[in-house]
């Protein structure tokens, strides 16, 4: 008999009903949390911050409105409106107030907000002036760092404005002993604290804060038990009445106690997942190895005849729907970068245990089925692949991939485990890794990884080489010499490395300032009681309570920089077809393609800046005239042709992504200009910086902040995503592209790399198609690629979806580290997806 059940279990009628209810309306912003936290904070100003956090959490959980949605089997909703969101003014709030009138109509991820909610938020927000993490972080940053952020060299927006999230807690611990069990542990620890201890003044309040939080969570579940009981009493439908009574029974036991059934384990899991979100607003709170920690409960009930596979599947499907009920409103610019209402709740199946045995089980298969059943972007389903991953599981995963949902993402144990070892994890912990958010590996319940710490635009330092440290009329970086004076490629490349190094140091400063701000103003006692070794150390993860600490900002634009530097090397220095001065001018003139308003604004800012240096003031009306003049400037035909010829010449230079050894090894070295220097830096929690090479979908908006690059890319167009080749530049098909990408050093980018490929459905049709697809993944992984994900849709479908979004409300595409509903993406991002090389026949 097979070791696991691989048959596909059918979907029940309940699931489409839950999905339809969830997606009936535009998501809505609610004010309850903002009002409650503000009330609590006003009443606790004399207390330590950790106590205030716990009391506020308690006040929220005791009073926030609760609801059990129609047909639900798993209860727990953060908002009354389906897919609604609360706000978190303790991190930041001004951006939302500024967007009150546009948030419902903006392109990416719109939210409805009522007039009453606006008034209530304004009233609550008023308290937070000067008290947020983002304000403190700003105050802690060096002036040159603020300047670099203002000039879009990097964007630490994620944690600058929001909670951190990006963690996997010890779900297994809560399932096993419940919060009553955790309370016991904490009470014992507290009993051991003596007033004379050096850390008594921080440890005791922290442990007390944990107790307050855990008790609040238990009471919150009891509120649901009471609500379910009340609804059951009023329910005329015998079947639903029974379901509600069961919900009441579940919520009265868990998460207070250890789960005794699979159903209780599901409910207990859900409260943890939901309430982590409610505590801090961070995204990428990742369920991790769900098939592993849920399996004992499933197996026990199944063996005892208390559970059918069909019901187990239905419960999984219900959780999958609930994961899409959680939502978050981001500022407009971030919403573009993270488009698709995604919370990046990464849930991973398969892989090894701490002793190196393959741990695939029934639930590994059922999790994949659940994603097929609900067909929604969350969870970000992932699969761990290693040499002993069962072929059946690979085929099952590939079968989901070919539906076009963009799930699962595939991760390579054979690269990730050694990579984590090199960062100080034990072999046991490394083998048990899971993925956070998009692609970031870590050990659950022991890590504060700060995995998504910033977007670092590797293209901008190259612009600073050409401008000798100036940008838009201001000196914002070090001087690395005039490019006109550079006589060797080494000199030019060295200038790039210096610009990189300097700006990386500012990036570190930004992240560390934000890190300190979170520890100071928003330590999280509830989260911290589920991460080792916070309880013993007596401090939150924000203050260094976790065993493993990292900061992982991601670099992007590898392919653009590899192609750019290679083109400069070839055309300027090897073949001497063009001078750096000519190149510089071609870039400034956007290869003769004219200037959009953004470019014109930048050029005028440059001129105005230079005039200001010389003591000449310019008023706004003059600036407007200057911008208009620049935009209407027509280049002489001869000059325009010169730039176009250069661009045609650049086009002929070999590009990354085509399996050309020389170019690919060059790209490997270029990636090191980001990944190596970062390793030299430390964060305030005592951990190390480590690089990721993935951009979420920020390659589009951040590309819009980047001028023309020497690879022929025009100003303000998207840069390459992840470690993928530049869109359309890989022309020898998926194996050539994968070979090129695998030649980068994935191991050193221990915060993850991201490789997107897009397939036409015919490439995966039939049994043979699946087999070949699996072989493709295996082969990329044989060559030490780290991660792979796929879009399987045809171009015509995407174009049609762009023209008729109403017909494609449920079209899911993979946008980088996650799946999103295509029609909710902005047009530019949709275009980017369409443009990616179609790897069809």
């Amino acid at each position, binding site marked *: 008999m097979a070791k696991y059940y691989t048959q596909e279990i059918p979907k029940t009628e309940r699931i489409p009903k839950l999905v339809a209810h969830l997606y009936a309306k535009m998501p809505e912003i609610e004010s309850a949390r903002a009002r409650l936290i503000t009330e609590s904070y006003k009443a606790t100003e004399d207390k330590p911050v950790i106590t205030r956090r716990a009391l506020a959490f308690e006040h929220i959980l005791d009073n926030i409105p609760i609801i059990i949605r129609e047909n639900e089997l798993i209860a727990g909703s953060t908002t009354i409106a389906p897919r609604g969101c609360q706000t978190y003014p303790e991190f930041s709030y001004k951006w939302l107030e500024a967007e009150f009138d546009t948030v419902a109509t903006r392109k990416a991820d719109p939210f409805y907000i009522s007039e009453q909610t606006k008034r209530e938020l304004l009233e609550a927000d008023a308290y937070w002036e000067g008290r947020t993490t983002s304000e403190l972080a700003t105050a802690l940053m060096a002036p040159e760092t603020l300047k670099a952020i203002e000039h879009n060299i990097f964007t630490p927006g994620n944690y600058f404005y929001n909670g951190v999230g990006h963690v996997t807690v010890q779900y297994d611990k809560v399932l096993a002993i419940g919060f009553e069990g955790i309370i016991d542990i904490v009470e014992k620890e507290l009993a051991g604290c003596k007033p004379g201890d050096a850390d008594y003044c921080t440890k005791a309040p922290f442990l007390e804060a944990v107790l307050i939080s855990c008790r609040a969570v238990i009471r919150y579940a009891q509120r649901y038990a009471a609500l379910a009981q009340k609804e059951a009493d009023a329910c005329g439908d015998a079947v639903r009445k029974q379901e509600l009574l069961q919900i009441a029974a579940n919520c009265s036991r868990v998460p207070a106690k250890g789960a005794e059934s699979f159903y209780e384990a599901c409910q207990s899991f859900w409260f943890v997942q939901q309430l982590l979100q409610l505590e801090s607003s961070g995204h990428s709170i990742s369920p991790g190895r769900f098939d592993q920690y849920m399996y004992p409960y499933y197996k026990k009930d199944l063996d005892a005849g208390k559970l059918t596979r069909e019901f187990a599947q239905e419960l999984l499907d219900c959780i999958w729907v609930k994961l899409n009920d959680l939502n978050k409103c981001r500022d407009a610019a971030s919403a573009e970068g993270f488009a698709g209402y995604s919370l990046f709740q990464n849930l991973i199946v398969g892989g090894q245990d701490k002793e190196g045995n393959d741990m695939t089980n029934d639930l590994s298969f059922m999790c994949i089925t659940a994603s097929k059943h609900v067909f929604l972007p969350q969870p970000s389903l992932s699969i761990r692949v290693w040499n002993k991953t069962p072929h059946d599981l690979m085929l099952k995963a590939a079968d989901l991939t070919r539906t076009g949902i963009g799930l699962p993402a595939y991760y390579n144990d054979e690269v990730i485990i050694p990579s984590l070892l090199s960062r100080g994890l034990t072999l046991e912990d490394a083998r048990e890794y899971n993925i956070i958010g998009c692609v970031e590996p870590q050990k659950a319940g022991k890590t504060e990884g700060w995995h998504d710490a910033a977007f670092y635009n590797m293209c901008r330092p190259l612009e600073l080489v050409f401008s000798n440290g100036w940008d838009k009329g201001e000196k914002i970086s070090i001087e690395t010499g005039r490019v006109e004076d550079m006589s060797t490629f080494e000199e030019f490349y060295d200038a790039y490395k210096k610009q990189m190094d300097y700006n990386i140091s500012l990036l570190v400063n930004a992240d560390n300032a934000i890190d300190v701000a979170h520890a100071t103003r928003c330590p999280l006692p509830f989260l911290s009681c589920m991460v080792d070794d916070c309880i013993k150390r007596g401090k939150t993860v924000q203050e260094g309570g976790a065993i493993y600490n990292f900061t992982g900002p991601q670099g992007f634009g590898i392919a653009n920089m590899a192609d750019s530097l290679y083109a400069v090397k070839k055309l300027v220095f090897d073949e001497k077809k063009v001078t750096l001065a000519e190149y510089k001018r071609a870039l400034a003139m956007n290869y003769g393609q004219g200037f959009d308003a953004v470019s014109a604004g930048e050029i005028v800012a440059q001129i105005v800046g230079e005039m200001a240096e010389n003591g000449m003031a310019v008023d706004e009306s003059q600036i407007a005239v200057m911008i208009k003049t620049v935009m209407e400037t027509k280049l002489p035909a001869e000059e325009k042709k010169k730039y176009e010829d250069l661009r045609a010449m650049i086009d002929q230079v070999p590009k990354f992504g085509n*399996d050309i050894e020389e170019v690919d090894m060059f790209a490997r070295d270029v990636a090191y200009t980001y990944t190596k220097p970062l390793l030299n830096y430390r964060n305030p929690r005592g951990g190390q910086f480590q690089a990721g090479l993935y951009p979420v979908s920020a390659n589009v908006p951040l590309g819009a902040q980047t001028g023309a690059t020497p690879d022929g890319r025009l100003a303000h167009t998207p840069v390459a995503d992840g470690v993928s080749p530049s869109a359309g530049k890989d022309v020898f098909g998926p194996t*050539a592209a994968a070979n090129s990408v695998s030649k980068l050093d994935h191991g050193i980018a221990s915060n993850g790399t991201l490789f997107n490929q897009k397939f036409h459905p015919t*490439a995966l049709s039939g049994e*043979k198609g699946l087999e*070949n697809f*699996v072989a493709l993944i295996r*082969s990329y992984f044989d060559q030490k690629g780290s991660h792979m994900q796929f879009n399987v849709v045809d171009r015509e479908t995407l174009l049609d979806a762009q023209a008729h979004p109403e017909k494609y409300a449920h079209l899911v595409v993979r946008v980088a580290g996650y799946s999103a509903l295509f029609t909710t993406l902005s047009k530019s991002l949709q275009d980017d997806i369409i443009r990616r090389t179609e*790897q069809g026949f």
Partner: protein
Amino acid sequence: MDYLQTKGRIFDIQRYSIHDGTGIRTICFLKGCVLRCKWCCNPESQEYAIQEMTVRGKKKIIGRDVTVEEVMETVEKDRPYYNRSGGGLTLSGGESLCQPEFARDLLHAAKAVGINTAMESMGCARWETVEQILPYLDHYLMDIKHMDGEKHKQFTGKSNELMLENAKKIAAFEGTRLSIRVPVIPTFNDTPEEIRAIAAFAHRLPGVEDIYLLPYHRLGQDKYEGLGRKYELPDILPPEPEHMQMLKKVVEDSTGLRCQIGG
């Protein structure tokens, strides 16, 4: 290893081919063909001479002379994919047998380094030519287009006797698997009777287990214009999926062969 220096003329190398032979394959397209099939989707393959073709408004040179060694450099790049999928090198064309030494030496070079080999071919050459290739060939994907010699000649320019005769000999050759492929072209060979006749022939060949029905497509039509030629089948539509299913059933009912639609 002199065979590595043998020269030939190709017009393309396509990687990640998954519709021609087993697994993930690299196809090397040899230039030059003995037939002039009216439906040919690679009309630039027919002439041995190097040609100019207009592709999306731009002139493109079709055909280049290469050594076996040069081709093998590209073929080697996807070895991990062959290993994982059971793939390898496929020769296509044109008709590879028009460049027999190059075809033989290229297949030899692949076999010598443990790479699986396949060849798409009509078998339209003297037996002595075919025979010297077979020791290096794992899988012969042989086109049989029609059993009626007259009609065959009318649509392809040549009668079919030589090819049918070769098919029997190839089938008898140990060590090379033979599969039969039939391009299904409306107005030429898409009736049940015509397909049944080909299937019956294939079924009589010893060792042949599968037959592929490849539905006609028009993806090569623009190339005729690019070459300054006239496409002679402008009014023919690809066969309907239901029709293909019906033909598949005809094959399966009348023979014991495995029948697959598409490569």
